[in-house]
C-alpha cells in the first residue's frame, strides 16, 4: 500500500522524458507550420537557399506572406550532415574499438584506471574546443599534409581526386567529428568489455584460445549490442554537432561537395549561422524555415536510431546477461 505513491511518482517522472520529446516535436511542427505549407516537398529536394529580398516589401505567395524571391531548399545541408557523420563514424569506429579493447584487456590495472579516466574526460571536452583546434591546427594540416597525402594514395577513386582547396570542408569536419565521437564509443565499449563475465573468458582460455582469440571470439560477440548502441550515441552527437562543424566546414551554400575536400554545411551549423539574418525577415518565414530544418534533423535522428535498432535486432546487452 505504501508503495503506491512511490509508484505513481516514478511513473510521472519516467513519463517526463517521452513527454519532453513529444513537446519538442509538437512545438517544432506548430512553429514551422507556415513554412511547411509554404515550402512543400520542395524543401527536401531543393538545393537553393534564398531568404529573398529582405529590403523589398513582402508579398503573398502560396497563401503565405514571404519576401520576394524567398526559396528554401535544404538538400545540400541534408547531404552535408549525412556525409560528415558517415565519414566520421567510418574513422571513429575502428579507432574507438581499438582503444576500448586496449584499455580493457591490454593494460595493467593502474594505467588502465588512469587512461580510462582520460578517455572519459575527452568525452566531456566542450565541442567548441574541438572546433577551435580544428580551425587553428587541423584545416592548415588538411590543406598541406593530409589532403595531398590522401590524393596521392587514393587519388584513383573519384571522391579523393580533384582540387584540395583551403582545408575547410568535408574532410576537416569529419575528422573533428570523429575525434569527438571516439571517446564516447570507446568509453561505452570499454565499460561493456570489462563487464564480460570472467567465466566466459576462462572457458575460452580453457579451450586453448589465445588472448586475441578470446577477445575476438568470446568478448566482442558478447558486447555486440553495446557496440551498436555506442555507435548510435556517437552518431547522435555527430548529426547534431553545431559549433565545431561550423568552424571548419567552409560553409558551402547552394552546391554539393565534388570531393572529400569540398566545403560543406550541415543542418545544425546552418541553423546557427543563419539565425541572425533570418531574424531580419519581417515576415518571419526565414526563422520558421530554420525551425523546419530543426524538425527534419529531429526526424532524421529518429529514423537513424530506428534503423540502427532494427539492425541490431534482439541482440543482448552484456548488462542484461
Amino acid at each position, binding site marked *: 500500500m505504501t508503495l503506491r505513491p512511490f509508484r505513481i511518482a516514478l511513473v510521472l517522472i519516467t513519463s517526463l522524458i517521452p513527454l519532453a520529446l513529444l513537446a519538442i516535436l509538437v512545438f517544432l511542427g506548430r512553429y514551422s507550420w507556415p513554412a511547411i505549407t509554404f515550402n512543400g516537398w520542395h524543401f527536401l529536394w531543393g538545393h537553393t537557399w534564398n531568404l529573398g529580398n*529582405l529590403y523589398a516589401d513582402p508579398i503573398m505567395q502560396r497563401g503565405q506572406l514571404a519576401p520576394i524571391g524567398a526559396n528554401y531548399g535544404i538538400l545540400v545541408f541534408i547531404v552535408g550532415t549525412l556525409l560528415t557523420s558517415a565519414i566520421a563514424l567510418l574513422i571513429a569506429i575502428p579507432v574507438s574499438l581499438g582503444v576500448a579493447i586496449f584499455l580493457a584487456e591490454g593494460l595493467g590495472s593502474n594505467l588502465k584506471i588512469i587512461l580510462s579516466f582520460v578517455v572519459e574526460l575527452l568525452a566531456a571536452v566542450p565541442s567548441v574546443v574541438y572546433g577551435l583546434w580544428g580551425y587553428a591546427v587541423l584545416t592548415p594540416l588538411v590543406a598541406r599534409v593530409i589532403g595531398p597525402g590522401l590524393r596521392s594514395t587514393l587519388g584513383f577513386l573519384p571522391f579523393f581526386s580533384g582540387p584540395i582547396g583551403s*582545408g575547410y570542408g568535408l574532410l576537416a569536419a569529419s575528422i573533428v567529428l570523429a575525434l569527438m565521437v571516439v571517446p564516447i564509443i570507446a568509453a561505452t565499449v570499454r565499460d561493456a568489455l570489462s563487464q564480460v563475465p570472467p567465466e566466459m573468458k576462462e572457458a575460452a582460455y580453457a579451450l586453448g584460445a589465445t588472448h586475441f582469440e578470446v577477445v575476438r571470439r568470446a568478448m566482442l560477440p558478447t558486447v555486440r549490442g553495446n557496440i551498436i548502441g555506442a555507435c548510435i550515441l556517437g552518431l547522435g552527437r555527430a548529426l547534431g554537432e553545431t559549433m565545431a562543424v561550423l568552424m571548419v566546414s567552409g560553409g558551402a*551554400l547552394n*552546391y554539393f561537395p565534388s570531393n572529400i575536400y569540398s566545403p560543406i554545411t550541415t543542418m545544425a551549423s546552418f541553423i546557427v549561422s543563419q539565425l541572425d539574418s533570418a531574424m*531580419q525577415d519581417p515576415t518571419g518565414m526565414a526563422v520558421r524555415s530554420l*525551425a523546419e530544418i530543426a524538425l527534419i534533423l529531429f526526424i532524421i535522428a529518429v529514423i537513424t536510431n530506428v534503423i540502427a535498432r532494427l539492425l541490431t535486432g534482439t541482440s543482448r546487452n552484456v548488462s542484461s546477461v
Partner: protein
Amino acid sequence: MFKKKSEHAVRSFATASVLLAAVAGSAGITPAFAGTINIMETGSTLLYPLFNLWVPAYTRAHPRVRINTEGTGSGTGISEAISGVAQIGASDAYMSNTQVKQNPNILNIPLAISAQTVNYNIPGLNTVHLKLNGPVLAGIYDGHIRYWNAPAISRLNPGVRLPHHRITPIHRTDGSGDTFIFSQYLSFSTPYWNSHVAYGTTISWPAVPGGLGALGNPGMVQAAAQTPYSIAYIGVSFTKEVQRAHLGTALLENRAGRFLLPTKATVEDAANQLVNKTPVNERISLVFAPGAESYPIINYEYAIVNDHQASMATANALRKFLMWAVSLQGGNSRSFLRQVRFIALPARISALSRKQIAKIR
C-alpha cells in the same frame, strides 16, 4: 491577421534566444546598486571595437552609467533593440521599410562612417594593388569568372602578369553588414547581379564550386590568408589584421570610373556626395556614390534605438551617451575613430543624428 501572429511568434522565438543570452551575460553583471544605470549594447562586430574604445572613456567621466558591450552581429543588434533586451543595437545595415513599418518606434541613428576593402591572396601579387570593379567581382562571386587571368580581369590590369589559377571567392556565413554593403556594390553596379541575387545581410550566394564561407571578419582574414588565390571582402576596422596577413588590397572602381583605395579623403568625399540626400530618418545607402574621388563601398554605422525607453533615467543616460558619441569633441573625435579607421559624421548628418537622439524618451 497572419502578419500579426507571425510577428508575435518570431518575437517569442527571438526572445527565447535573447533570454538565454541574458542569463549567460548576467553572470558577469554585478547587481545594480542604487543610482547606477545599466545600458546594454549588442550587435555589429564592426562597431564592437569602437564601442570598446568609447565605453571606458565615457564611463570614467560618468561613473553612474554602466554600459555593457557585445559583438553578436547586426541582425541580433536590430532584433534585441526591438525586443528591448538591448538599449543600443549596433548595425552596419539600416532597417528595411517593412521592419520600420512594423516597429515605428525604432530609430536608425548613424554614429560614424565605415568603409570596406576587397582583399586577395595571390602569391607574388599581394603587394600590387589590382584594379577591380563591380561587374568583375559579381562575375567572380557568381562563377562566370573562374581564373585570375580571365580576360575581364586582365583588361582592367594591363601589364600585370596574372596567374592561371582558380579563384576561391570567400563570403560571410553569418548574417553581416559587410555582406550587405558588398552585395549592394555589386547590385548597384551590375544589373545582372541586382536582378538575380540582389543584396542583404545574407544573400543566396550563387554556387561557385570551391567557394568558401567564413565566420566574422577575423574568419575572413584567416580563410583568405590560408587559401592561395582567394578573394574576400573585409571591414576597414580590420585593416591591421589584413596587413599582418600580407593580403593584397584592391583598387575599386567608383561610379565615375576611377579606381580608388579607401583613404580618409576618398571616404569623406563619398560621404559628402550623399549628405544632402540623407533623409530625416537617415536610412540611406552610401554605396557606389557619385563623384570622381568617392570610394565606392562605405556606409553609416547605426545605433538602433527604441524612442520609448523603459524608464526616464535610462532614456536620459542613453540620450547623453549617444549625444557624446556623435559629437566631434566626444566619440566622433579623431583620436577614437583613427584607431578603427572610421570617419566622423559630416556636420549635417551629425545634426540629423542629434535630432533623432533627442526623441528618445
